[in-house]
């Protein structure tokens, strides 16, 4: 079996890619991509850390189930905000947006 540190390394790299996207992109949908990648990094980290104890903790898997559900809700609300903003302002470049209410 692969050592757990390799899984942690993949998680750190995913987190780095996500932060890079958050800081350098301006398209709102792409920023949502980055947030989802960071969610995945956190989930992978939780599952790998739950295996660290010698009868593994099942709480980690339960927590990740909750996190996945929360991420799906966040995506739903975020995408509906993006659709609303694109209707009001005719663009979704976050550096050019100044109003959310029409």
């Amino acid at each position, binding site marked *: *079996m*692969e*050592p*757990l*540190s*390799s899984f*942690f*390394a*993949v998680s*750190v*790299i*995913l987190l*780095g*890619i996500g932060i*890079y*996207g958050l*800081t*350098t*992109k*301006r*398209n*709102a*949908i*792409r920023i949502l*991509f*980055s947030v*989802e*990648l960071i969610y995945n990094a956190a*989930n*992978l980290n939780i599952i*790998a850390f739950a*295996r*660290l104890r*010698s*009868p*593994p903790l*099942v709480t980690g*898997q*339960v927590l*990740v*189930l*909750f996190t*996945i*559900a*929360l*991420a*799906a*809700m966040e*995506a*739903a*609300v975020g995408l*509906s905000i*993006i659709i*609303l903003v*694109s209707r009001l302002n005719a*663009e*979704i*470049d976050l*550096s*050019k947006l100044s109003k959310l209410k029409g």
Partner: protein
Amino acid sequence: MTDLLFLAFAAVTIGAAILAIEARDLVYGAAALGIAFLGVAGLFFLLDAAYVGWFQIAVYIGAVVVLILFTVMLVGPKMGETPLGLKRVSLLAAILVSLLLGMTGALANATAFPGPDSCGSGCSLTLLSTSLLKSYGVQLEFMSLVMAAAVIGALALSKTDRGQ
């Protein structure tokens, strides 16, 4: 065998994540994001969390990626990509790369985290479902309340005042 699988899943995940951020077309980006989610699900399978892996595939690829594709089609694929100033980007990239290299270097010391023991009955689906429904039943109910609130909020947000 497990090493090869791990390497394949890790490479697919990281490559597809980079592609999702950097692809010119948002539709390709969404597809690459789906492939990255699939790679993470494969890593979950390798960690003996098969149910979480299937849940990840169903929710992320079945719901989130499809939702993102719908939004890209509704908003228009080519909207809003102005390039950022080079100085800020390069500074951020330098900070990030040094952070990543430092942390992965620290994690490469495999003695700090030994390989996990074989899972046995600790990873069984029975244990997971009992824990989910008995120990965390209240939290599960709260989660469904939050989900209802999120759906109602999304509906209320996307309702415009065309009727007036």
